[in-house]
């Protein structure tokens, strides 16, 4: 085994934990069974720090920082579940729910959706914003997969996996702010894409029911369980 970095001791939610200095707070929390919500991060792909659900408080620091991108420091005191954090997380989930079309009862990913899980786990019990009722055309042109932008949460996992692991770079993002959306190639129907290898990686990383396999009934869409391991391996191999 390669020489590992120094060991740090710190406190998370009052518990003493030890960690290697190259580990993030999120990794340490996971090792210790402490739950921190995440959505944009997926092991094996680059970090973008975009969903802001993993924000934590650190004693003596003014700003909230993302656990996925903050490294352990000696003597650090971390809080992962304060009232302040719970409020922001609920607010973010509430904003996400009201932006897209998330009627779980008719979604193939019902029961296997990370957004749905987070909403339940974080206790988002009502949405105070009128739904924006997006009417974005569902792309059914791919022979095996379907893209429903009404359910997309713009986590950019599909873009990253397709670029960083598959090397196809079929996906990208277009527009900015509220108008941002995922595109395939030159914003053409997915079925006409010249770069897509139909590998299905994007299907496996999509946290919601936005990219799914064709022909699934409500609640039937599950993701490959060992996919995270696979991604990490592929990424290591690429380095």
């Amino acid at each position, binding site marked *: 085994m390669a020489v590992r970095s120094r060991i740090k001791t710190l406190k998370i939610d009052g518990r003493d934990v030890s960690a290697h200095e190259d580990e993030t707070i999120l990794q340490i929390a996971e090792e210790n069974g402490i739950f921190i919500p995440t959505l944009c991060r997926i092991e094996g792909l680059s*970090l*973008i*720090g*975009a*969903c*802001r*659900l993993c*924000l934590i408080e650190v004693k003596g620091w003014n*700003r*909230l920082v*993302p656990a996925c*991108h903050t490294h352990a420091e000696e003597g650090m005191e971390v809080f992962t579940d304060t009232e*302040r954090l719970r*409020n*922001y997380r609920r*607010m*973010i989930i509430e*904003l*996400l729910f009201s*932006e897209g079309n998330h009627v779980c009862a008719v979604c193939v990913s019902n029961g296997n959706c990370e957004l749905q899980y987070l909403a339940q786990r974080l206790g988002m019990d009502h949405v*105070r*914003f009128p739904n*924006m009722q997006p009417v974005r055309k569902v792309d059914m042109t791919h022979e095996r997969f379907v893209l429903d932008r009404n359910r997309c*949460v*713009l986590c950019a996992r599909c873009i990253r996996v397709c*670029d960083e692991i598959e090397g196809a*770079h*079929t*996906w*990208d*993002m*277009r*527009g*900015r*702010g*509220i*108008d*941002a959306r995922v*595109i*395939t*190639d*030159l*914003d053409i129907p997915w079925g006409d894409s010249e*770069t897509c290898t139909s590998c299905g990686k994007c299907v496996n990383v999509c946290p919601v029911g936005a990219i799914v396999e064709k022909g699934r009934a409500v609640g039937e869409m599950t993701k490959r369980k060992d996919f995270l391991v696979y991604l990490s391996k592929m990424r290591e191999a690429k380095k």
Partner: protein
Amino acid sequence: MVSASHAESLESIISRFAGRGRDALLPALWAIQTASGHINLEAVRALSLALNVPEADIYGVIGFYSMFHDQPTGETIIRVCTSPSCGLAGSDDLLDHVCQRLGVEPGQTTSDGRYTVEETTCLGLCEHAPAALVSQRGVGERSVPSAVDLESILADHSAPYPAVTGSLTHLLLDGIPVDRAQTLAEYGDYSALRRTLNDLMPDEVVAKIQASGLLGRGGAAFPTGLKWEMARRSEEKPHYVICNADESEPGTFKDRVLMELRPHLLLEGLALCAYAIEAEQGYLFIRGEYPLATQRLQQAIDAAVASGYLGDNIMGSGFNFHVEIRRGAGAYICGEETALFEAIEGKRGFPRIKPPYPTRVGLFGKPTVINNVETLCKVPGIINRGGRWFRQWGTDLSTGVKLVSVSGHVSRPGVYEIPLGTPLRQVLTELCGGVTGRLQAVLMGGAAGTFLAPDEIDTPLTFEDLRTVGSTLGSGAIMVFNDSVDLRDVLRRLGAFFQHESCGKCYPCQLGTQRQKEILDRLHAPLPGDRERLTDIGQTMSESSLCGLGQTAAAAVLSAMKRWPHLFE
């Protein structure tokens, strides 16, 4: 006027940029946009092959920048600014008038394909409000100050607009022509650089800047000397210097005036920074809406290179420093330093997560110093006369002099140089000729700033005093509103600004700016619970957003809520 047929062909553009790598993407897209008025699929395919960038990626980049189009546009694109300062000067009526005359809605092109009309955010010409920007196919951009009607917008202004300036300290803006750039002969022989190359080691340059206490003038007020020191010590090579001339904060136009009038001062400051951190390559990133500043700086660079003040072996010292101008393409977020790096690298202007900070991992992943135009313009004076000299103005914490951009309801809107610590009231009365009408509110620091009420204008303009009253000096924008103004209308414009400029990378800001805008749009007839929603969104954005845009997108709204709660009932 040059006709479109003179425009460069796609083949010629592609061959000019082929093999130059990804960071040539924005310059190449600009060349195509200017030549053909839009960038079509054929051009994207050709560029993809020439620069080795995936097609989806290029398409995503085009869609990120407001000044790039993927659909055909008119031969002339007319953009009318509707940000607050122009709004006060009647820009809504102007936009209506232009649209009516041409028979289109904003965003549309006339059926004969001659004109496209667009609404735009602040063009940085606030002292000449209302302002417009014209893009002529095959020619490029042209600013229109004090636009009156369609004819005045289309008329070819060959007489340049003079800057409106004033000063209590007579350093940067005094004794120079206001209607043209200072020439190299008038500026002098880059004496600070000459002396430095002869007598000073890089760490001595840094020490001088540190001794001056200079804080960055771009908004974040970070100590400049410390930034340089951190970059100087970064072992990874090469190092880069960047001048942030993206100036897109509504109500801010001091950098434009500095670049238009004193380009050599800026170039000397940039070269001194390069020497201090041992960089050989520098970039000037200028917003696409500043054609005149871009042109004058390019001329100044050419003149400086011809005289041996820039380039290889400067003044026989062995020090090499090259400067390249990069044009932005309409995105406020690209003023954020890491988004600006992404733009130079040819990507969508998405801010990076920090740390690592630019002084360690910046442009192209290398140690980088990025400074505001005004910050760099302070450098030659400090090198020549020393830190103590600079500290004779200002306070212990806010040293030296500062430029402020004053717009709105004052007799003489313009750029003014003040010692830090000057009370706002003195700026308004002595320099700007007084408030026109009865003062109702002042917006400090631009859209990302906060409101002050009339009883707060004795506050000294320093970073620390403004912080104490919960406000900010920011980039030095001061927008003045008299009591004829409907502040709800101002808030509506600010909401629209942030909704339009959010990059969309992180959830709180991407979704929050949209929801904030919806509520600000209906302030005249709010729904029950709107006030709480506005507060909750504002706090969430301020505390949980990834970058400074989202973190300040609610600042003005929250400050107005504190001072004028009745506006939200």
